[in-house]
């Protein structure tokens, strides 16, 4: 597609000449680099709750962010009004960070190379409202049909389409149309007069509504949410203390996101505040571990054709056979660290300054049979599903919270136990990985990562792994 056919040119009449003049304004007081990020985001969501469609919302936000880099400094301003006067004003505010003679903007733009990771069968707004209603109603029915003990179901379908345009003072131009859709189902179940228990499931990715008709149906998510609630009805107290932990495949890959991913973001390492700072080439995990961050997997929630700085995304090796190989770089950090961007510059919206972020983070499959991994544990915990996690990148301590887990006794998965937080230390935890399964699985597409107040969609994945030692935060001491 040529620029003139792109969304912002066609809809707002923005020309390459306009972009050059805004960038010149941004560099009018000097600076090394400037960029513009135009965003037009249309969202829609619908929800069923207590068996009726209780909510339906849609909306539009648009704006442009202007950034100026001068050495280690960033100037940033934005406008929700795309008129030339307002964009120029934002450019002048961003320019305040630099103090000197104007810098030159490269004349003429070159269109950035980019992937085509999420071709759309239909634009989200081409599928009617009736189809959306049908999806959430199907989820509600399927969850209730799963077991009579289910007494509350909330199902939500949400999708969005984000059009972006990035123009840089070094002459790069990229635009992208980024779909996102997600279905989630929350279930409450109760046995007799006992305490209600909760189950949750969801998924999606850079897909449109057809995905939920053809690939992962509402029934799939509804049954999974109901199944989890059923498991919890029988759960006992979670154990407390250090023990071997087996993580099931898929979403438990959140371990990688918390234990190593954040600590490898280049901004923390440039500043020397990460527990992984200065450790490239060192062994930070067992030799069984190879960890990748890959923004180029088709249709995944964390994937992008170009990152939010207009750079093509990549498959980046973070840890190879236990050895730390690289950081996740954005433009600012890579320039200051004298290396290349890894296509990891991301931002929540035009109102936010980009920073290094993960995309889809996963561990490569190993050789072990998952059944053998469980058999090798005489007393420990098997974790199948998590809710979320958090890390202190400076000390390296991280937590992730299991919502579905079981005791392992004499090599067998036995009783389910209640939710518990697991805690470990990033540069140490993966050294205790002693078995890696051949069953790598990516998650269903529900992850949202928060950093310094900015949320971005991400993916994770992991095969079944055994960690010889980890602290489990239950109550049964």
């Amino acid at each position, binding site marked *: 597609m040529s620029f003139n056919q792109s969304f912002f040119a066609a809809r707002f009449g923005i020309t390459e000449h306009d972009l050059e003049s805004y960038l010149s304004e941004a560099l009018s007081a000097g600076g090394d680099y400037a960029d513009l990020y135009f965003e037009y985001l249309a969202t829609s969501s619908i929800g069923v709750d207590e068996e009726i469609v209780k909510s339906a919302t849609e909306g539009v936000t648009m704006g442009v962010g202007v950034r100026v880099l001068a050495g280690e*400094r960033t100037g940033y301003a934005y*406008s929700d009004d795309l008129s030339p006067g307002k964009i120029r004003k934002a450019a002048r505010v961003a320019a305040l960070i630099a103090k000197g003679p104007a810098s030159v903007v490269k004349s003429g733009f070159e269109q950035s190379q980019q992937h085509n990771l999420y071709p759309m069968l239909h634009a989200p707004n081409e599928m009617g409202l009736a189809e959306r209603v049908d999806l959430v109603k199907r989820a509600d029915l399927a969850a209730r049909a799963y077991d009579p003990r289910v007494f509350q179901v909330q199902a939500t379908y949400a999708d969005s389409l984000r059009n972006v345009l990035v123009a840089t003072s070094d002459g790069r131009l990229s635009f992208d149309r980024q779909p996102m859709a997600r279905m989630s189902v929350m279930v409450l179940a109760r046995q007799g007069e006992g305490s209600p228990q909760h189950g949750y499931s969801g998924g999606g990715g850079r897909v449109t509504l057809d995905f939920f008709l053809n690939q992962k149906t509402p029934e799939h998510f509804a049954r999974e949410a109901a199944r989890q609630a059923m498991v919890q009805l029988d759960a006992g107290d979670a154990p407390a203390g250090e023990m071997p932990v087996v993580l099931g495949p898929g979403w438990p890959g959140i371990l990688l996101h918390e234990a190593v991913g954040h600590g490898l973001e280049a901004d923390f390492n440039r500043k020397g505040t990460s527990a992984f700072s200065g450790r490239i080439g060192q062994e930070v995990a067992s030799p069984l571990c190879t960890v990748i961050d890959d923004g180029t997997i088709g249709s995944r929630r964390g994937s992008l054709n170009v990152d939010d700085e207009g750079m093509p995304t990549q498959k980046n090796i973070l840890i190879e056979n236990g050895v730390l190989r690289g950081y996740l770089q954005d433009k600012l950090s890579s320039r200051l660290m004298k290396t290349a961007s890894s296509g990891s510059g991301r931002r929540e919206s035009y109102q936010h300054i980009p920073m290094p972020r993960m995309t889809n983070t996963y561990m490569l499959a190993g050789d072990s049979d998952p059944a053998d991994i469980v058999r090798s544990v005489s007393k420990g915990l098997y974790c199948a599903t998590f809710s979320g996690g958090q890390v202190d990148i400076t000390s390296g301590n991280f937590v992730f919270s299991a919502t579905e887990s079981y005791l392992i006794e004499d090599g067998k998965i036995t009783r389910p136990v209640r939710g518990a937080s697991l805690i470990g230390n990033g540069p140490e935890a993966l050294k205790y990985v002693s078995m890696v399964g051949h069953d790598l699985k990516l998650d269903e597409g529900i992850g949202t990562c928060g950093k310094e107040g900015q949320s971005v969609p991400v993916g994770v994945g992991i095969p079944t792994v055994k960690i010889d030692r980890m602290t489990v935060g239950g109550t049964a001491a």
Partner: protein
Amino acid sequence: MQDRMSPAQESTLEQIAADAVEQALAGGASGAECTISEGEEFSVGVRMREIENLKEAGSRGAGIRVLIGEPGAQRGGSSYTSDLSPEGIQKMVKAALELAKITSVDPFTGLPEPAELGKLEGDLRLYDEAIEDMTTEWKIDQALRAEKAALDFDPRIQLSEGASFDSHVGRRVFANSLGFTGSYQTSSCSLSVVPVARQDGAMERDYWHTAARSAAGLESPESVGRIAAERALRRLNARKVATQKVPVIFEPRTARQFLGDIFDAVNGSSIYRHASFLAGKLGDKIACDALTVVDDATIPGLFGTTPFDDEGAPSRRTVVIERGVLKSYLLNSYSARKLNLKTTGNASRGITGNAGIGPGNFFIEAGALSPEQIIAGVPNGLYVTELIGGGGNTVTGDYSSGAAGLWIENGKLTYPVSEITIAGNMRQMLQQIDQVGSDLEFRGAVAAPTLLIREMTISGQ
């Protein structure tokens, strides 16, 4: 900034909101409510004694919720836009009306009763015009001084993630088809610093933060820097303790997080769905005598204060737990109708959608003992200064979180501990709050003093 916030602008936004409501009614709605939010933000970050980033901008958004059908059998639809032009508003209203056709009739949905609407009069001190007097240079200087105080405090602090000074002015406008129109302006500013302490190859960071409606309410940058430095330093050389059951003291910063979990459990939406361990417990003794929890959105100047909630009901004071007895849930009009109760004025939403439920100033009333006196009464236990990940499960009450803090021996804080978890069940935790400190401070909308909980499970080695 000045011209955006002029009275002319205010009436324009109120007019836009009222017009949107009118358009919805003209388009066939039986009820409508429109929210407009406008804000300007400024932020400066410094790191290692240099300016690192500077950000300044403003934005606005409008949202509408429409209802169609007869009251008592209505259905709703919502939409929002960042385009406040007449065309933008028109499209927004049309989209909401379309969406209302596909939702279900819900006998409990609707606007509040006309008699439930209103707003607090008088100056709530939500906006301090002194916010406009702060120059960019002054704000940068505040951040530089806070970081300098931290970096100069101790030779083990040579590194920092930086300091930032942020300020915000905003306006919130609300109108509905029952004739309510209201708006209020807010201001806030804050200063925070994150020093990193290093010793023998290990690193620890911590932060301190001060926030107020304008500069006059802030702690001094030197104090913010010093406290942050002391907090980072005292975490160095932390140990992992053995798994055991001991008394746990939450300092105000972590007690506030625990109180956030309690808020979720008294949230009317969780109650009517039976998704809270406190559902059906109104009037029951759910906590120890020492515990009184209040939600009060009327206290001038505080961050949880508003003249009216997000569906136009006046703000008020609600006693939620009184000396251990559950007195009230926190409700908007929808959850109130579901529970056959009255709204408590806690409706909360962004700019669109069905209203959720949010806190005013939600706090635990201060007790008699100082934190030092509470610590002195613990022979062996944990003083929690940070919670990481996890938290409470509103449905079951189960509680499990990563933690860091200081070990208490013979009534004194001793060595730091980290990489541990604390766990229990909120039902028991509430019954076992043996002491509530005198050190209540409002640093945000949710505030708690020091709390002593008789016994929790520490998981470590």
